[in-house]
């Protein structure tokens, strides 16, 4: 544990994770921004009605990609980096919970995570991918001393 802590606290490792997380978010945000209706459809596919009313799907669809982009740029540029990392971890947690909820109800569809062109179907692989991206975010969010 000590070795891992030292490793993940190393400035270069943390910076690498910040860059990786930032690039992931920018890469994920752009195709969604380019096709908002498609992303709204993807959000609706998750059927989060009990938590998020159907009518609110569009609000999420128009704001989430831009929050991703802003947080991603903050991480890449090193401005408000830690805040960007916190937003990244927060959103990624919500996305992962969405995937888990969809899997638990046996839903299987293209999640639209990186836009419509790159299809990723909800499933164990997607979940593993999200957990890995979440881990990157945690390292990126570590406080620099």
């Amino acid at each position, binding site marked *: 544990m000590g070795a891992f802590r030292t490793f993940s606290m190393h400035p270069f490792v943390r910076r690498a994770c910040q860059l990786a997380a930032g690039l992931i978010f920018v890469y994920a945000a752009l195709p969604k921004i380019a096709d908002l209706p498609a992303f709204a459809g993807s959000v609706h596919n998750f059927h989060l009605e009990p938590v998020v009313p159907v009518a609110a799907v569009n609000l999420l669809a128009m704001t989430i990609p831009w929050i991703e982009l802003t947080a991603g740029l903050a991480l890449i540029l090193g401005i408000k980096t830690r805040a960007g990392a916190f937003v990244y971890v927060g959103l990624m947690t919500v996305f992962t919970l969405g995937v888990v909820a969809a899997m638990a109800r046996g839903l299987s569809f293209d999640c639209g995570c990186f836009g419509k062109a790159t299809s990723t179907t909800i499933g164990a692989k997607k979940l593993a991918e999200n957990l890995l991206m979440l881990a990157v975010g945690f390292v990126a969010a570590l406080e*620099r001393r």
Partner: protein
Amino acid sequence: MDRWWSDGTERGPVLWKGIAAILATGSLLGVAQNAIVRQGSPKDGLAWRYEVPKLDSLDAATPVSSAAAAPSPSPSSAAPLPPDMNDPLGLGAASAGSFDVPDVARPLQIQISRVKQFFDAGAAVFVDARDTAEYVEGHIPGAVNLPYDDVVTDPERLEKFDPKGKPIIVYCGGGTCELSMNLGFALVNAGKKKVLVFMGGWPEWSTSGFPVAKGKEPQGS
């Protein structure tokens, strides 16, 4: 911020303010971009409220009984209607329209009365999008069972499915049935040209007193 490329020292109130700033900036930019997009072309942007997508209706796509009103501009010569045993006098013929279905990029919706006409004439292939257990309990006679959940993991079943040129009518458990919509889109994506979705689905069919069949799919279909 001693080294700008390795910032990450924020904590406490500064950190929370930063998070709030990112969320606010992102939300504002998103709303602004959407507004700009909508000014250019409303359908490329999003309305404030999300509406569950509605499919166009087959009746709207092929105006029924336009023959009396105006000479039919349809380039494909209207196929003679098959004899309808439930309507020997042809009273329903005017409203029955033809069984021509246009090639579609999105599935079309079809209402139960038209579904029954297609069924009676044998003019369409029925596809049941529910899972096999539900199919065995009861289905529209002659329907092929293509459970949407299986098709997702085994797309070859879509490729193999051959309607032999007939229109495909997809149905499922009714209500806000997503299965038939999803399967409808999957069929179109798999290159099927004439795809109709019967939104009322099994509940509407079985409560209308129309013929039903039970048991497994006949082999070799």
